[in-house]
């Protein structure tokens, strides 16, 4: 922070630097303490703040926020937010997996639905190759 910026902020926030909002407050205090030797932690904090500074336009930010408020949406729809939140995504993925498993089970069940004849052949030990026909008389088995 330069002296000019300090004076500009003093007109903006008042004479009591301690009442200024962060990070203006620390920058002003850093300027005031520039020639004063203080503890290494405070010096590191000032260095981190200086390194962290980015360009910003508060008026632009305010206009964007107000536009979002007037648009009536704080962000994406509930469904979109649900999908993009990790928990929501995991829940949707789990639901989709369960649905696919159930569908697969149903399809497989329809394809593998054993007929009564096949079950009877299986129970009696007959080969399904002969069509699962079960001889009425066990003596007839093997007699050609």
């Amino acid at each position: 922070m330069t002296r000019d910026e300090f004076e500009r902020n003093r007109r903006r926030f008042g004479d009591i630097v301690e009442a200024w909002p962060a990070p203006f407050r620390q920058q002003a205090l850093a300027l005031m303490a520039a020639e004063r030797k203080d503890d290494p932690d405070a010096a590191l904090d000032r260095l981190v703040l200086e390194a962290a500074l980015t360009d910003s336009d508060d008026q632009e930010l305010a206009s964007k926020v107000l536009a979002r408020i007037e648009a009536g949406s704080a962000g994406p729809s509930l469904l979109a937010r649900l999908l993009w939140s990790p928990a929501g995504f995991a829940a949707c993925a789990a639901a989709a997996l369960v649905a696919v498993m159930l569908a697969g089970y149903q399809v497989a069940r329809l394809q593998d639905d054993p007929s009564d004849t096949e079950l009877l052949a299986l129970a009696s030990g007959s080969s399904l190759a002969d069509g699962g026909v079960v001889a009425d008389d066990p003596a007839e088995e093997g007699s050609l």
Partner: protein
Amino acid sequence: MPAAVRHEEPRGDDELLARIATGSQSALSELIARHGRGLRIFAARYLGNVGDAEDVVQEVFVTVWKQAARFDPARGRASTWLYRITANRCIDQRRRRALRSFIGLDDIRDEVASPEADAEATTAARQELAIVRDGLSRLPERQRMAVLLRAVGDFDIAAIAEVMGGSAGSAEQLLVRGRRALRDHLAMVAVGRERKSS
């Protein structure tokens, strides 16, 4: 400068929030003018991405607009409340980023601390700041958050703990470790440079 005075919250924020709760857009603009910059710096350095930080801070102020009536000055400072909302949004944003990256929709890039751009910095001061930024980006997330809350938000240990939702002891540990790691990083880079020059 007495430390007790240093962290005293101006009553202006409480009044602004009370006015916002009644639907005053000018009060919201004033709150943004007071805290928008700090929140944006905090979010940008924590997330490592200016675009994400911009989005997060907009969301924070929209939330403030909607929830201002729920703020209770007796339970804490307005700035702590604002930074807590921002910290939570930043954590959500990081998780979303990680998920998008995991499913291949995004690359996680540190757009704020771009070492290539910073490497072009010619002055020693700018190079030092670039090294600090690099060190910050390498810190574990919670240590980085604690260090940024201290440096950018000007919070004391108790307030850092309140924002991060932990005990004062753990907040202090995070801050101490974060600072130590930053110092180690700065020292390591300095040693590396000395070796290179010799």
